[in-house]
């Protein structure tokens, strides 16, 4: 068996804040294979974006990885020099951020930015990198690529800017693309175009995609697998089909029920009481317990680990019977 493109084992990240040390990521593991699309969902502050940034070594100066190991195609990045690690990550993983205007350099033309990785990282000639830039822009659906190479980011619309950002992410021929809320700032029509583009890339180039978003409907339509994140951990993971139909964690259940569905409006949306825990304080028991309708004494005492339940993995003591608790509570 070949090793996955990317493997993360027991990753921990801490952030220095003025309120104390914040345990942003508290032990997550994941594998990404070629052609796979994995969604990471959760509320703001659950650690979705920090996960991607920690893997790529893009953490802000006040944050650091305190534990864990990352493997790219079976090779551990631990113990490598910064230069080596950057070279591997830049070659294998591309990233698309939410805010394309902030992610692009305003004083360089789009063409310069797209050809930078081929030219500087892959050592291609200027002419060849230029050709590659045109090819990439055509690939991501930017009309009149040759002319548009010479424009600056501010001259483009939001949708086109995000396409440029994707072209840059693709310019090093990565095996995996990280998408950090790439469509959140876009209109639904443009979102549909960008999602279509990513889906086509996955199907054609067999690229692995890790898609961080808070929009469950987007995950439903473009991901095969989903990881539900809460308070710095994955609390449920499984196939989108399984998890969306039959969630095994009360948080996943609540999240899915609180999202309005365009096709099936309901009398009243399910809302989750309370707030996410403050991770500068130590957590005792399940971090979701104070907000959970099925919490028991066991939940307040011990934090559950991910375990197999049906076809998913879940970190809940009551994975198989929490729904009966909900019904009992309502009756």
């Amino acid at each position, binding site marked *: 068996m070949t090793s996955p493109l990317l493997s993360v084992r027991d990753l921990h990240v801490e952030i220095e804040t003025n309120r104390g040390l914040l345990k942003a990521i508290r032990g997550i593991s994941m594998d990404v294979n070629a052609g796979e699309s994995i969604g990471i969902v959760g509320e703001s502050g659950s650690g979705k974006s920090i996960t991607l940034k920690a893997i790529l070594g893009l953490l802000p100066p006040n944050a650091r990885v305190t534990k864990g190991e990352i493997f790219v195609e079976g090779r551990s990045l631990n113990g490598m020099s910064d230069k080596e690690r950057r070279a591997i990550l830049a070659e294998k993983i591309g990233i698309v951020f939410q805010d394309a205007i902030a992610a692009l350099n305003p004083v360089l033309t789009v063409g310069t930015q797209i050809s930078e990785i081929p030219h500087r990282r892959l050592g291609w000639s200027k002419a060849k990198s230029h050709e590659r830039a045109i090819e990439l822009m055509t690939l991501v659906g930017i009309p009149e690529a040759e002319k548009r190479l010479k424009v600056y980011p501010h001259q483009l619309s939001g949708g086109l800017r995000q396409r440029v950002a994707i072209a840059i992410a693709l310019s090093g021929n990565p095996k995996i693309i990280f998408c950090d809320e790439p469509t959140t700032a876009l209109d639904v029509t443009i*979102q549909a175009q960008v999602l279509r583009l990513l889906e086509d890339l996955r199907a054609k180039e067999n690229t692995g995609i890790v898609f961080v978003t808070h929009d469950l409907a987007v995950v439903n339509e*473009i991901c095969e697998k989903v990881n539900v994140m809460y308070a710095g951990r994955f609390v449920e993971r499984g196939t989108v089909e399984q998890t969306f139909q039959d969630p095994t964690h009360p948080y996943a259940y*609540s999240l899915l029920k609180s999202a*309005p569905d*365009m096709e099936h409006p309901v009398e009243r949306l*399910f809302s989750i009481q309370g707030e996410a825990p403050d991770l500068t304080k130590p957590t005792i028991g399940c971090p979701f317990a104070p907000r959970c309708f099925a919490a028991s004494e066991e939940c307040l005492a011990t934090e559950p680990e991910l375990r197999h339940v049906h076809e998913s993995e879940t970190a809940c003591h009551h994975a198989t019977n929490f729904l009966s608790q909900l019904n009992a509570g309502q009756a």
Partner: protein
Amino acid sequence: MSDIVLSAHELSKHFVGRQSLLAKVRGQDPFTVPAVDGVDLDIKAGETIGLVGESGCGKSTLGRTLVGLYPQTSGELSIFDRQIGKERSLEERRAVQMIFQDPFASLNPRMTVGNMLKEILLFHKLATKEDVEDKSKELLTLVGLPTSALKSHPRQFSGGQRQRIGIARALALQPKILIADEAVSALDVSVQASIVNLLLDLKRDLGLTMLFISHNIAVVRQISDRIAVMYLGRIVETGPTEEVFANPQHPYTKLLLNSVPKMTPGSKLGEAPSGELPKMQAKFVGCRFRGRCPVAVDACATTDPKLLPVKGSNNPDHMTACLLVQ
């Protein structure tokens, strides 16, 4: 008396660009952006209208023009059959209130919640010095906040709670109509759900009339009785929510609804729509949507379609501005 609370007829708001002296001397027309360009809209008592459309279509400008943050360029606006001029009286200002998108930017960080409500209530003479605290507490209870919140500053609250404060502030003036401009867009989905539920409760309990502006079509479907679809400064389709979702008529409405990702298990990404919202022009000839329209015909280039009832529909409230379905 009719049950129409607010009525806009041919309402327009044009933004005029700055001109150089040379251009003025030459007598050139200044560059104008018709952000809202001839909107007809009636809002009935107790109903919630969802206003949807892409960024830049003019939905926020329309909301702000209705509140009076922008004076209208032309057209008529009346509240309870009373014409509203460019200057609004205190009472007219009270009648239309707004909830803003960003709960962080729309509250004064230096004022406690209590002082914020007190200022409004006393200025509009809706409370006396003696009962202002009780009235403020009532408002907080109404939006589901503890009365102890009176002494706190906005920074001590989460995003969802701040949005509740924003709602309390708008309700303090007992408005006839509430305009919610992307009121839940900045919130997490679980918090969003509780604010949507709160608005539905207020509507049921107070008979609140609301214009709910959002780009999130799933939320709009959840909350609205009627929906209006806006494109480049115009309303292109309006009708009862169920009717419009089940049976969209305008090609733009169809395109918009198709683009929304669905929660239904097994739903897969469809074909992507082509094109994007074009730039606003000073003058439009013909249908504004024809450049992106998959079914445009020659007549669309010359005739500007009016908002008319859908032919063959048994619901006279379902109207659309498309030559092909009228």
